[in-house]
């Protein structure tokens, strides 16, 4: 493809959603249908545009484009390489599905005219983060996305949501400021903040340490890394389910992406090892994995349990960054894919359950599997993938990671993965098994009250009462992806991950 065309498409995927935000905001006040249609069209067009970049990205070429200079030496610039491509492909795909899902989900909620523009704006800024050509641009889009996502978090406007939202906002600003500090130090030490110009900081100094910790705090907050995860279990459950899916599925990954870029573009593998920073990250990641999984066990609310599970899973991603061989990095990047797909499925399914039955407590979900078989099947597939049952994609990523850890001589990390998988099993299985096999609450209470009602309930129990097609379809698509990407180890995401890992290890 011609360079200019690629650049044009690249700019299109960022600017188009941002532009459509304004249009949807305007249209949303007039017509709900048009608003839905436009949002869908935007997400679809963005996804198609991203697909069009596929040959270019896989071909290994790097496209750079400077938009304009804000300050001397600090430009807003964009850059497409294989790692960015991985993430924009993933985001635009999940975004498309979440948008489809939202149409029915939001139909009964208030504030759709606010939800869709924000959804599109976060899409644009999220792609902006992944396509940023330098840390300054990355920081700006990061701040924009994080702050606008606040509106998604507080969408329900309940007191809980407001409280969680405030926590989210403060923590996000703290994270933004930390990244800001990191970018400044980076600019001062390296004279540039461009991505892909080799290590910007090439020796360990107090300032460099400060930069490392600033980035770690900033991106770590976003990635929900211990001890900065405090906002996450509050914020994700209160958002509307499609938004939770995106928050957990994609927006957490911006933090992981930032950390990857930090390791390979601000610093270098040598410096990370020399200063033992990778060990610091690994320790935090291990704590994150164990803590996230353990706390998830104690959660009664389904969405909170999923949110804590996200904390644990992000721990894998961070842990994977600390060992620098191709196998681990492939697994790491593939886990970004897997987790995004699995967690989105889970949140979408949970959303459908809550939407249909208004039940959030796990104990109340017994027997619902018979009422909503498709939804619960999708949930089950994704949950099993989370646990790491073969042949699902979660297994593939854990397998690759474990192989890599062994190769790199970090056998103990494999142990951590195993423990965590056990914990995962302990908190996911009690949702799935009673859902299909257990008795419904109404049945139990019916037993006590009398025969007749029991009989009536019986009739309802076997009534299949699924959510609407537009809500079920995205889940099914995602669940199929979970399966497919697990069964065929030579699938597209896996190849892309491997390419990205190679690319990173070759020095960006």
């Amino acid at each position: 493809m011609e360079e200019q065309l690629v650049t044009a498409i690249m700019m299109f995927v960022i600017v188009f959603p941002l532009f459509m935000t304004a249009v949807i905001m305007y249209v949303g006040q007039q017509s709900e249908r048009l608003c839905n249609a436009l949002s869908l069209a935007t997400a679809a067009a963005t996804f198609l545009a991203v697909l069009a970049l596929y040959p270019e990205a896989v071909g290994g070429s790097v496209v750079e484009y400077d938009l304009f200079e804000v300050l001397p030496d600090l430009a807003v610039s964009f850059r497409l390489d294989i790692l960015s491509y991985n993430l924009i492909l993933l985001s635009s795909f999940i975004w498309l599905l979440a948008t489809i899902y939202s149409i029915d989900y939001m139909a009964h909620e208030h504030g759709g005219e606010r939800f869709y523009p924000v959804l599109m704006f976060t899409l644009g800024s999220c792609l902006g983060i992944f396509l940023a050509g330098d840390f300054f641009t990355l920081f700006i889009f990061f701040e924009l996305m994080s702050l606008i996502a606040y509106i998604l978090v507080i969408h329900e406007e309940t007191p809980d949501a407001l409280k969680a939202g405030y926590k989210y906002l403060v923590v996000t600003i703290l994270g933004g400021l930390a990244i800001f500090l990191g970018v400044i130090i980076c600019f001062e030490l390296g004279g540039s903040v461009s991505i892909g110009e080799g290590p910007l900081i090439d020796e360990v100094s107090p300032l460099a340490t400060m930069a490392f910790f600033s980035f770690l705090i900033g991106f770590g907050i976003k990635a929900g890394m211990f001890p900065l995860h405090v906002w996450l279990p509050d914020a994700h459950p209160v958002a509307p389910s499609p938004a939770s899916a995106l928050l957990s599925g994609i927006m957490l990954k911006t933090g992981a992406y930032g950390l990857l870029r930090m390791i390979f573009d601000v610093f270098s593998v040598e410096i990370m090892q020399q200063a033992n920073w990778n060990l610091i990250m690994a320790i935090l990641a291990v704590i994150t994995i164990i803590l996230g999984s353990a706390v998830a066990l104690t959660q009664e609310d389904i969405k909170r349990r999923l949110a804590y599970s996200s904390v644990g899973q992000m721990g894998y991603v961070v842990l994977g960054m600390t060992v620098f061989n191709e196998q681990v990095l492939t697994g790491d990047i593939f886990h970004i894919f897997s987790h995004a797909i699995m967690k989105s499925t889970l949140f979408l399914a949970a959303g459908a359950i809550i939407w249909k039955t208004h039940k959030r407590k796990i104990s109340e979900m017994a027997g619902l599997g018979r009422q909503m078989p498709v939804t619960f099947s999708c949930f089950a597939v994704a949950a099993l993938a989370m646990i790491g049952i073969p042949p699902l994609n979660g297994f593939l990523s854990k397998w690759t990671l474990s192989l890599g850890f062994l190769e790199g001589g970090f056998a103990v990390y494999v142990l951590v993965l195993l423990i965590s998988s056990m914990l995962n099993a302990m908190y996911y299985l009690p949702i799935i098994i009673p859902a299909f096999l257990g008795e419904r609450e109404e049945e139990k209470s019916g037993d006590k009250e009398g025969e007749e009602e029991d009989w009536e309930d019986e009739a309802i129990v076997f009534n299949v009462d699924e959510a609407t097609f537009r809500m079920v379809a995205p889940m099914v698509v995602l669940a199929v992806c979970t399966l497919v990407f697990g069964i065929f180890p030579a699938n597209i995401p896996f190849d892309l991950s491997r390419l990205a890992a190679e690319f990173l290890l070759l020095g960006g």
Partner: protein
Amino acid sequence: MPAIEHYPIIMVAGLLLLAFIMPLLYIWKRNWCEPVAIFAISVALVMSLCIIYEVVQGDAFEEGYWMGGWEHFGIEFKADYLSSYMLAVIHGVGLLILIYGIGDLKKELVEKVRGWYYTLYLLLMGAMSGMALTNDLFNLFVFMEIVAISACAIISIKEDRECLEASFKYLILSAMGTGCYLLSVAMIYMITGYMNLDMVGETMALGVGEYPLNILVAMSLMVVSFGVKSALFPLHVWLPDAHASAPSPSSAVLSGLVIKIYAVALVHILFRAFPMEILKEVPMTDIILWMSTLGIIFGSIFAMVQENFKKMLAYSSIAQIGYVFMGIGLFDPERPEETEALVGGLLHILNHAVMKSMLFMIAGIIIYSAGLKKIRDFDGIGNRLKWPMYIFIIGSASMVGIPITGGFMSKLHLAQGAIAVDMPFFVMVIIASSLLNAIYYMPIFINAFLSESKHENVTFKPVPGSMMIPVVILGGLVLLFGIYPAPVIGVLESAVESLIQ
């Protein structure tokens, strides 16, 4: 059309003259006061833009402008980069505040004194322009006093008890500052025998060895004096009362412009009158740095506990003026080539002027429309006062330093400067204060939009367009300076370069 060299003096003299004509107009043609005042400031704005253009492009202002043609011993006006930048800020923001004030003052001031308000306003504008332009220490003193009196009067014009008391406190402390300034000028005159800044600078360089103590004392007095006047912590005690109790347009102009002009004057004197060797010997910049740091932190902390919205904004001004002084403080005389911090500090003059006057105007709009002053009463007003609260979001984002707003750009420069002179601690200060700002600004608009409204039965007075338009324009400017600050920064870099040489 007089030649461009005459513009500065025409501006200052014209504004002062119109200020005195205002009472007459008020007696004869009451309705003309406002249009004439607006016209005057607009002309001044156009002139300052011409001046800034000429300073950047041409060389009309290379030579100073000697009053009465008395070269080397008269009063000199000199439009350098910094002064012309400040002129544009003063008149640009001042014009918008004036337009805003027309609507607001109808409610806040009694009919009898409204004409005087414009007198004081033009006097303030003229004197501030004079302070920015003059190159003469004593002339600066005179303009400072005009600014001080008219600033006090513009508070006390609303005759209620808080205003009067605040105004008196302001007057006394500002008189103290003036006393220090005059003593300092006396000492400088004793050493050098000149009042002209350039010549003082030249002569002082020769006298460093002979009168080190005199110079030291003069410099400290100078910092104390300007510190009092621009509310540098811990000399800020007068500010919260004064800025909170004044009529909202007055608060806007006081917080937005008046405290900055003293900072500009201090920069002028510090860098032009005192030679670099003295700055190297004396840790004056360090002292300013620490004062500003304390101001940034404590101003924010005090702001957090305020109930009254305007008082909160006033305390936040103390923190924000700290940024301006931090820019000065982060200048390292040993490494004069690292100027980002100074640029950032000076840039913050513009950004803070724009955003703080905007916020005070929004406070004024809320008071005008709903009569609410306490922050906790603001719950749910977002749906009734939609646009003011939207703009408030922009303003508070800029206060926190979110990208694409002006506040971010100044913080960026300050942080860069701090790193450049190896003082990363101060970046942490900036970050801590941004976080504090977030903690007290964010809940306001969150509650305004999302909390249950307490005001279902209150009638909200419609806000006239003349009050809304300036706020919207300022909101646009906050974003503009956040997205495209390059021209301003260009001017400021030249300004700093010419100051340091």
